């Protein structure tokens, strides 16, 4: 029964651009708060001045995932006076492929019939039954798009091969729940890169830390600051000056990673990190290992470290580690600091 899964979809909205160049939030079902509506209008590429069309963008705002597909209206169509329109889907889960396919179906329906009613039929069909017919005598099935597949869809090999040994900085930052900011002038590159970073901490399977498309305005930054650790993608180059917003800054076009001053002591790295980094690089360089195998290798190593840590914790009272227990083991200072912060992140630390 598709009931449980489709409870994940929250709403669908429609933005149109007409022949006079005006952009309007036309319609949505069931409802979208004014705040979210403004955010979505700003993310939709129709409101931007440039004429570049981003076919599909997605992002997160206050725990709601939104997926925007933009389409240029071609003949034959029932839509008069409309040059472009975007369909916005909001949902609670992260699954870009599913929502991209679904919104393409909805776009075609709308384009052909010119009325949202027909599009709603498709939407309600997916909401209730989990499938809907599309134009070419096929059907869109929700169960074809598994959440696990969405997590694995990105290419971790590209990330590791772009940064080499420096990708260990990303790994450390994610393990310690730090704030990572990625910048690239093209939104598609940012989306592609950031969506795969949470896979480095596969044992958590937590994609809610991912905010792939953020603009530098107060509202969004407020909602970003509510999270302790995040991976945020920016298209605006101004972000490099906002060192209060990140602990690690990734400059994608120049392939540079910088750690900000205030996070340097927390991000000290030692032999343990070198091992993990070597493992990552070697695994990614191997030509016949797929992305999911690379992720698996990294997660196996992570599990080792965590097992080590939990065994340490079990020896202490209340299964919580304290700084003293760590000091007793006489690890080198970088490893000790890392394990301490990791225990804090994994809730193994005595408060």
């Amino acid at each position, binding site marked *: 029964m598709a*009931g*449980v899964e489709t*409870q994940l979809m929250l709403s669908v909205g429609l933005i149109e651009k007409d022949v006079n160049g005006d952009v309007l939030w036309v319609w949505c079902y*069931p409802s979208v708060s004014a705040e979210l509506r403004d955010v979505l209008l700003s993310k939709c590429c129709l409101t931007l001045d440039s004429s570049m069309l981003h076919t599909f963008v997605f992002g997160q705002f206050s725990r709601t995932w939104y997926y925007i597909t933009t389409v240029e209206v071609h003949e034959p169509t029932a839509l008069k006076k409309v040059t472009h329109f975007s369909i916005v889907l909001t949902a609670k889960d992260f699954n870009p492929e599913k929502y991209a396919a679904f919104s393409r179906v909805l776009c075609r329906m709308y384009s052909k019939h010119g009325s949202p009613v027909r599009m709603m039929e498709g939407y309600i069909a997916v909401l209730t039954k989990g499938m809907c017919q599309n134009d070419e005598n096929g059907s869109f099935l929700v169960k074809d798009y598994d959440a696990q597949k969405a997590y694995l869809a990105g290419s971790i090999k590209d990330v590791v091969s772009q940064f080499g040994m420096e990708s260990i900085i990303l790994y450390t930052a994610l393990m310690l729940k730090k704030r990572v900011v990625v910048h690239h002038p093209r939104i598609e590159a940012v989306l592609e890169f950031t969506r795969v970073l949470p896979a480095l901490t596969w044992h958590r399977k937590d994609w809610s830390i991912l905010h792939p498309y953020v603009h530098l305005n107060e509202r969004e930054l407020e909602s970003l600051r509510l999270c302790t650790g995040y991976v945020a993608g920016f298209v605006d180059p101004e972000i490099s000056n906002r060192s209060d917003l990140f602990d690690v800054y990734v400059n994608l076009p120049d392939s540079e990673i910088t750690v900000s001053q205030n996070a340097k002591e927390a991000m000290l790295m030692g032999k343990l990190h070198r091992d993990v980094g070597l493992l990552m690089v070697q695994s990614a360089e191997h030509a016949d290992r797929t992305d999911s195998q690379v992720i698996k290798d990294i997660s196996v190593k992570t599990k080792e470290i965590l097992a080590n840590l939990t065994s340490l914790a079990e020896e202490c009272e209340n299964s919580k580690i304290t700084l003293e227990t760590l000091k007793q083991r006489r690890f080198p200072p970088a490893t000790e600091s890392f394990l301490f912060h990791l225990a804090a992140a994994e809730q193994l630390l005595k408060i």
Partner: protein
Amino acid sequence: MAATSVFSRVRTGSKIGAQYDQEGNLIQVETREDEEQNIKLSEILDLLLAAGYFRARIKGLSPFDKVVGGMTWCITTCNFDIDVDLLFQENSTIGQKIALTEKIVSVLPKMKCPHRLEPHQIQGLDFIHIFPVVQWLVKRAIETREEMGDYIRSYSVAQFQKTHSTPEDDEFMQRKEKAIRTVVHVSDVYKPQRKYKRQVDAGKLIDEESRVHSTLLEYGRRYGFSKQSKEDKVEDRKLSQAPGLPPGMTELSEEEDLQAAEELRIKTLMTNMAAMATEEGRLTASTVGHIVGLQSEEIKQIASEYAEKMERSAEDRPERYGPAQQHRRQMASLNKQIQQKTKQLEELHAKHLEVQAGCEEAKIKLLEASELTDKLERELGALEEVESLADSSILEKLRALVAMNENLKSQEQEFRTHCREEMARLQQGIEGLKMESGEDTEDEKERNQLIEKQYKTDRDKLQKIRLLLARRNREIAILQRKIDEVPSRAELTQYQKRFIELYGQVSATHKETKQFFTLYNTLDDKKVFLEKEVNLLNSIHDNFQQAMASSGAKEQFLRQMEQIVEGIKQNRIKMEKKKQENKMRRDQLNDEYLELLEKQRLYFKTVKDFKEECRKNEMLLSKLRAKGAS
């Protein structure tokens, strides 16, 4: 290549295993080892050159010569003995070379070289392995040279000094005596003088620190705080009973607490000391008693008085008590630092308290949340118990459907309210836009209206002109068509030709048709005659038998026959006449036709002549014109 042999390395410089191709030329076997060896050889030579072994530059020497020479040179530079006969023979045998290299290799471990080398490697010119050794040797050589540089220089100076002397040296020799005496005298004056002596029956001091302390005290040095030992000055005063300087003049340190602790220690030590016999010996006992007794209190008193005095008179005597001032300044700065650190500590403390408070709050929240989850879990557990009584699969479906239903209902409600809100919002937007556009001033409105009027009039004019244009176009079209209808000369000649053709065709068909007609007529006539003939013959045949029956009939028959013949003959004559007539007409027409043909021929000829004349005319005219123009 001896790839499968056991000794797979080809030794460079030796021609073992050289291959010759068909023409007897040496095949240049290029192995990677060879190139690397050459690179390494050049690096080794560069190193040796940099170290100072310039023989490596000589081109005539073999690499082995250079390398071995370089290594022995480095070893000797490091001050290690190596017994090598450096007079090389040009073509030494392998055995001799090995002997040389063995000597080198035996020295290397003595020099504690970290790289190992075999003699055959040097002899075989395995530069890849020789290189690290040479590198290390060169480094050692340079280090040794640095170390020994000074020594050697001073040795050479000494050698020089043995036989010669510079003018500076002579001067120095003169001043030496006087200088020595002065130095000795000065050192005597400032020698530490032993003031006390530890008594024999005081017992041995056990730990080193107290021994050191007591020795220092014997020489009058308080260890620790003051620059000058104030106490021994005080002691001196007490001992010598001399009128001591007023307390304010002594240089006292200001650290009273620490002094108190020191007092105690020194007391214990000093109890066992007696003043040196060179000093005032008879006061020994009383001195000791004094020391044990009230000295500490007096010292404290003096110290405090001095401190007050110093504060009061600090500005008057700035320079005389320089070291004290420095000390005071140091003290002041240390105090300030202490203050700063305490402030920081307070701030950190405050921050720590804040963070702790926040932590407590978060813990409380966590507790609440966990309580809530517990409650929910309990309720869920109860629910599950109830559910377990019912059929699970149907229950699941039902649950899902109910949930879906609720969801859709709530969505519908949401949607309705949202639609109302959206409508309100959009209407507001429209109002806003109307307001904006309606807010034009009067002038703008008038201008807008004027513009509208002008636009209308212009549009109407455009319409009218368009209609006019269309009509004119139509007229032009009609006229054009009419003009087209009148044929031009070329068209006319074409028409004429075509007409002639058609006429020819028509006449041919006509003639044919006429011929068919005449043929038909002829055949028809022929048929009639043949019928008549057949009738006649039939009748004759029929009547013949009858006729032969009687003579009268026979005669009748004969007459009839003759009549018939007559009739036929007459017919024939008529026909002949007709034929003659037709023939004559035909001839007449033929003649006429020929005449007309002649006429036509004449006509064509005339036309041709006319054309010719016209052409001539044209030519002459053009010539005339040309002549006229020029």
